[in-house]
C-alpha cells in the first residue's frame, strides 16, 4: 500500500498544518512517509504545494511523480488545476470551493466548479462557511482535512489527536474550534458525496451544500436529499431561493 497526496493552496492558508496532521498520523500508524514542502519566497501569498507520501514500504522520492498521486487536497478551487496532472487515472480531488482571490485575473468561480464537475471524482466543501460555523475562519485547512479523512488510512481519533497536538499551544478554545472544523468538514464531504452518488449534479450539490446549516450536516441524510430533489426539482429551487440556511434534517421532516 502506498498513498500519494499533493496538498495545495496559497501561502498563509495553513498547508503545512495539514501536512503535520497527516505526517504524524502516518508515523503513528507505523508507515514510512516523506513530505516535501515549500518554504521561503512562495510563502508570501504565492501558490504553495506539498507532496506527501506514506505507505507500508520504503518511500523513495520526496516528490510524487506525475501520474502517481491518489489525491489532490486543496484549500482552494483554482489551485487544484495547477496539480491535477499529478493524479493517477483513478485519483481523487478533495477541495474547498471557497476561492482565495489575491490576483487580478482570478477566473470565474462557476467555471472552476464546472471544470471540477467534469472531472467527477471530487469531494467539494465550502470551507469558509464551515470554518465560520466551527468558530474561526482560519480553520478552513482543518475543514479540508476532515473532508479528506475518509480517503486516508487512519482512524478519525488518530487524526484528531494530531489536530489537538497541533493547536495545543494556542489554548483549548482553538483546539476545540479546529476539532469541530475537522468534524464538520468530514460530515460535509461525506454528505456531498451522498448527494452526488444519489444522482445530484456536482454544481447542484455544491449549491445545495451552501444552503444547509453546516453545523447540522449529517451524511446519513445525503441520499434522502438526493432522492427528494430527484422526485421534485422544485425542492432544490426552494431551498436555494431561501434567505437563510436550512437544517440538514429538514429533508426528513419537511417544514
Amino acid at each position: 500500500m502506498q498513498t500519494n497526496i499533493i496538498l495545495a493552496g496559497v501561502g498563509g492558508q495553513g498547508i503545512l498544518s495539514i501536512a503535520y496532521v497527516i505526517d504524524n498520523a502516518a508515523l503513528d500508524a507505523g508507515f514510512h512517509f516523506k513530505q516535501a514542502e515549500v518554504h521561503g519566497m512562495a510563502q508570501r501569498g504565492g501558490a504553495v504545494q506539498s507532496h506527501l507520501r506514506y505507505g507500508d514500504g520504503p518511500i523513495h522520492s520526496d516528490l510524487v511523480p506525475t501520474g502517481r498521486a491518489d489525491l489532490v487536497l486543496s484549500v482552494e478551487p483554482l489551485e487544484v488545476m495547477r496539480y491535477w496532472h499529478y493524479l493517477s487515472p483513478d485519483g481523487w480531488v478533495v477541495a474547498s470551493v471557497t476561492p482565495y482571490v489575491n490576483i487580478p485575473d482570478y477566473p470565474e468561480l462557476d467555471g472552476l466548479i464546472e471544470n471540477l464537475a467534469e472531472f467527477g471524482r471530487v469531494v467539494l466543501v465550502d470551507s469558509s462557511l464551515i470554518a465560520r460555523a466551527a468558530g474561526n475562519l482560519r480553520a478552513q485547512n482543518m475543514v479540508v482535512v476532515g473532508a479528506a479523512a475518509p480517503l486516508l488510512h487512519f482512524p478519525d481519533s488518530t487524526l484528531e489527536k494530531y489536530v489537538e497536538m497541533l493547536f495545543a499551544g494556542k489554548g483549548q478554545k482553538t483546539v476545540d474550534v479546529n476539532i469541530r472544523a475537522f468534524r464538520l468538514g468530514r460530515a460535509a464531504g461525506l454528505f456531498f458525496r451522498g448527494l452526488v452518488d444519489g444522482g445530484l449534479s456536482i454544481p447542484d450539490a455544491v449549491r445545495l451544500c451552501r444552503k444547509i446549516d453546516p453545523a447540522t450536516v449529517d451524511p446519513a441524510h445525503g441520499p434522502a436529499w438526493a432522492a427528494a430533489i430527484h422526485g421534485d426539482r422544485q425542492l432544490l429551487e426552494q431551498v436555494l431561493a431561501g434567505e437563510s440556511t436550512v437544517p440538514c434534517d429538514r429533508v426528513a421532516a419537511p417544514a
Partner: protein
Amino acid sequence: MQREVLLGDEAVGLGAIHAGLSGVYGYPGTPSTEIFEFVEQRTAGSGGVHAFWSTNEKVAYEEALGMSWAGKRALVCMKHVGLNVAADAFMNSAVTGTNGGLVLAVADDPGMHSSQNEQDSRVYAQFALIPCFEPRDQQECYDMMIEAFDLSEELALPVMVRLVTRLAHSRSGVATREPRPQNALHPTREIRKWTLLPSNARVQYRHLIDKQPELLRRAENSVHNRLTLAGRRGVIACGIANNYFLENVDDGHDLSVLSLAQYPVPAGRIRRLVEHVDDLLVLEDGYPVVENMVRGLFGLDGVRIRGRMTGEVPRTGELNPDLVRSALELPPHATAHQPSPSLAGRPPALCKGCPHTDTFRALNEALSEFENPQVFSDIGCYTLAAFPPLEAIHSCVAMGASIGMAAGAAHAGYRPAVAAIGDSTFSHGGITPLLSAVQQGVNLKVIVLDNGTVGMTGTQRSMSTGDALDHIILGAGVAPEHLRIIEPTPANHAANVQILRDELAWDGTSVIIARRTCLEAIKRKAS
C-alpha cells in the same frame, strides 16, 4: 531508539547536537535557515550550545573556525550563495586545518526556488580539497552529520555536508542515537599551522595535498558509495538523485548502479562500473560534476556517457522523478488529467499593508520627475517590489550589492543613483560599500528599509535596526543632516515624498531610513 519527524535541515541540526555540538553559526537563507533554527530551539535554555545568528556567512564561518580552534565542535550552515561570501575563510580553513570538529552544512537550490543561481557546492568541496557528504534522505542527514564530525576531527579538516532544497525541506521519520558529550575546551597550540604566512602556508598546503590519498581511500571504502554490477547499462546516481532512480525501477531491474554520497569522487569504483558497462547515465541534482569528471575532455572509448551535458537530463533546473524516468527511457505514467495550460499564475507578493509598499510608493513618486529612473536593490521581501503593481526596483544581484552598484553607476555619471536595501542585508553586506561611498563623496541615495527583522526567511533577528542602524550610518560618516528617517505609512505619503525629493536634489551621499516593523514580525511576537 527514538523516532522523530524531521525536515532534512532539522535532521542535520539534530545530528550535530547529538555529535556533541558546542556552537552553531549561520546567516538565514532559504533553504538552509531551518538548520540553525532547529539547533537554536532544541538547545534553548540548556545553555550548552552557542546559537546566535551571525552578521553574514563569512563571520559565521570564522566564528565556527574559532570554536574549532578552541577544540570544540562547531556547525556552520548557509545557503549555497552564502558560501561565496564565506569563501575566503572557507578555502583557507582547509589549509589551516581544524582542531575541534568543523562541519559546513550547505543547502543548494537547484531550480532556484529562492535564489539567484544554482551553483553546486560540491565544486567548492573539490576546490578546497575537503571531504563532502551528500545525504540521500533525512536519516542520512542525521547519521552523516555524526560521521562528518568524527571525520573532521580524525583528518583535522573541515567537512562539508551538501543538501539540496528538496531534501532540506522534506520531512520524514528519523531514528536517533544517544548524544555524545561535548568536547572540553582545548585550544590548539600549533601556532604555525594557524598563521598562514607564506612560509607556513606552503607547509600547510603541502599537508593538505598529502591528505588527499587518504580522503580518496575513505570515499572508495565508504559504505555510502554503493556499487552493484549487473547488466551492460549503468547508472551513477548522486545523493537525492538515487531516490528518483529507485522510484522508477523495480527490484528486478538489470542496471549496474553506483549510488554516490561521499566525495571525493571514488575513482576506483567508477572505473569498475565503467569497465563493466557500455552505456552510462549520470544523475545529479545540480551541476554535472561527476558526469564531467567521468567524461573528461574527450570522453571514454566504448562507453556512451549520458546526462545533463548530452540532453538526456535538462542542463538546468531541479531534478525530479519525471525527468529521471524519461532519462531512463521509460514511458510516462498515465494521468487523470492533462496539465492545465494558461492557468492564472499566483506569484508571491508583499503582505497586505507591508511597510515596503508605502516606501516604494513614495519612492516611485519622488523619482517620477526623472526620465526612466532605475533603482538598485537587494535581497529580501522588498525584492518582490520588482513585480507589478510597484515595479519599483530594477536590480538584485548579491547581498549588499545595491549600494556598490549604485555607487559604480554614479561614478559613471548615472543620475539619480538610488539603492534600496533592508536593515539586515545592510548589516550583512551594505556597511562596507556605504563607507566606501562616503569616503568618495558619491552622489548616492541609499534607502534602508528598516523593518526590524529578516522578513523573508521567517523574521529572524536583525543585527542593525533602530538606534544601532542610525549609529552605524553616522559612524560610517554620513552627514547627520542627510540621514533622514521616515515612517512609511499611507498617511505620511506626501511628507515622505518631499523628504525623498529633498535628498535627491542634494549632491552627496544620503541615507533615508524607512522605519516600520514588518507585519509578520508583529504577528509572531503576539502569538
